[in-house]
């Protein structure tokens, strides 16, 4: 009966049916768990309340869409591209003012969410992917994928291994077409930057980029700009040193912004990077519901990697009262997992991330990174030496 409908329509249909259940005390008492597909085709398991939240979110997305269209009508199409401040010394002061006004509007607007239909276009220009692409010949991606076709490297072997293990069960990603497309993007990137090659985690990031961007070439450029310009260097290379740095910076920030949680977890001997490493490497794609993840990415692509800290801190902050009552590592992890998996309303998370955590500039984060780098390098270096000495003994 749904034969002619697209997957997304199907998801809508199912959810609106389920929503009717709300008034029923019986269903609520029974705490019914339902399975359905979300906007991006992921199977979600949730209770009746979760379904209602998702319906509210969908309505908010629609309203947000209207705001964007209205702005386009009043300011002109692509108005958001004219927001660069500071560089245009040739601009007249009135133009500068309008650029500044646009920038402020845009920042607020993006924190409230980019409508899914506009995402490909806006991400592509605001992240710098369009600019990156424009510096090479148009045929770059095609040439690259053709040139590397059929080549076998350690990276391609690992990519092949992970393709069916990337969001298994997804209606498009987990099909021969989905696997082949994801493979081309990941393999192409592994040749573009052989220091990164392939790092587990990128499979999830690239897969989600494909779902949003719709075309593989755009997804490839988004991946490139993310790794080369947005995120801290060496997050995914060799020994993940960049990721180690981020984890240390995060621990310091947690102690500063959420001191009660930090000291309680320290007393439990719970190292927060046990859970946050995955958040940083997969940019929340394995933990948050898809629309919530993408709302986080909206802001990352505009404001930068510091946003990951805001969001990670917010997840802890939201559960402060529960976290400080825990007695055991397992409880902490359960709370954090339950929280992330059920964050169906992106605004619940982003309000805390930006209003309650307080602002952190990219500059302060950079300083923190600089401070941590030598220590991380020293530790990794010592470790490698120890391992090498073990190997020598083996011989």
């Amino acid at each position, binding site marked *: 009966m749904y034969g002619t409908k697209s997957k997304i329509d199907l998801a809508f249909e199912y959810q609106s049916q389920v929503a009717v259940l709300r008034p029923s005390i019986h269903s609520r008492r029974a705490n019914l768990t339902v399975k359905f597909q979300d906007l991006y085709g992921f199977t979600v398991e949730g209770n009746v309340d979760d379904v209602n939240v998702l319906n509210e979110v969908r309505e908010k997305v629609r309203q947000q869409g209207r705001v964007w269209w209205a702005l386009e009508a009043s300011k002109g199409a692509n108005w958001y591209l004219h927001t660069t401040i500071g560089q245009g010394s040739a601009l007249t002061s009135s133009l500068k003012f309008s650029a500044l006004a646009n920038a402020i509007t845009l920042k607020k607007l993006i924190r409230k969410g980019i409508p899914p239909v506009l995402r490909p276009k806006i991400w592509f220009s605001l992240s710098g992917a369009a600019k990156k692409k424009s510096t090479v010949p148009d045929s770059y991606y095609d040439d690259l994928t053709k040139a590397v076709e059929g080549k076998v490297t350690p990276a391609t072997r690992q990519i092949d291994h992970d393709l069916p293990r990337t969001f298994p069960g997804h209606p498009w990603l987990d099909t021969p077409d989905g696997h082949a497309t994801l493979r081309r993007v990941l393999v192409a990137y592994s040749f573009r930057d052989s220091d990164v090659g392939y*790092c587990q985690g990128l499979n999830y990031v690239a897969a989600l980029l494909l779902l949003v961007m719709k075309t593989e070439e755009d997804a490839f450029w988004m991946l490139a700009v993310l790794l080369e310009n947005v995120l801290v260097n060496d997050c995914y290379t060799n020994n993940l040193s960049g990721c180690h740095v981020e984890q240390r910076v995060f621990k310091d920030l947690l102690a500063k912004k959420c001191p009660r949680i930090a000291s309680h977890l320290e007393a439990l001997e719970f190292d927060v990077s046990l859970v946050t490493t*995955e958040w940083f490497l997969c940019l929340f794609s394995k933990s948050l519901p898809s629309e919530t993840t993408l709302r986080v990415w909206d802001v990352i692509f505009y404001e930068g990697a510091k946003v990951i800290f805001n969001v990670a801190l917010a997840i802890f902050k939201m559960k402060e009262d529960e976290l400080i009552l825990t007695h055991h590592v397992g409880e902490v992890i359960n709370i954090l997992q339950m929280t992330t998996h059920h964050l169906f309303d992106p605004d619940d998370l982003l309000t805390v991330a930006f209003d309650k955590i307080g602002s952190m500039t990219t500059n302060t984060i950079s300083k923190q990174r600089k401070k941590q780098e030598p220590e991380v390098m020293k530790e990794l270096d010592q470790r490698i030496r120890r391992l090498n000495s*073990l190997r020598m003994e083996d011989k």
Partner: protein
Amino acid sequence: MARNANKSLQAKLVLLGDMGAGKTSLVLRFVKGQFSEYQESTIGAAFFTQVLSLNEATVKFDIWDTAGQERYHSLAPMYYRGAAAAIVVYDITSMDSFVRAKKWVREVQRQANSSLTMLLVANKADLEDERKVSNEEGEEYAKENGLSFLETSAKTAQNVNELFYEIGKRLAKAKSSHETGMRLHSRAGQDRGGLFCCA
């Protein structure tokens, strides 16, 4: 001291091994009794708990299932620090994974706490036709290094429960020998959270 039946211990257990060796699948078979052919790749690590009731004691496992890709190696100490037991897993259809397993064994012997119980596990025993690492090879290596050795299949469940029971029994035994006063469990900072009694 003799109330063995009520004894309860909490133990941190870590799984190490090459990517795709089946670490997560082994844990999910044990914890949930489930298996899926294509298990999502683990990033960083995943955490599970399971309680095992033995005659000797009730063992509460905190299981850290780690990411297998080589570059994630640098995160491993965080997971095996303070562990009471480690399972090093390889895939019988991949010689590379066996080589990698040996490296893990060396590292854990050296870096983790000395009372740690380590087992070597050859997984995917159901894929006999594609076998690259013989049973004897694995067994011999385990013997040389004083490890228990089991061939398992997360898919068919072969030896999976046995594996965790074996660990549970060993931990219970180690615990009771501490309790009978031979040597008090040292409470040096880094061993905390490894194996402790909460009965």
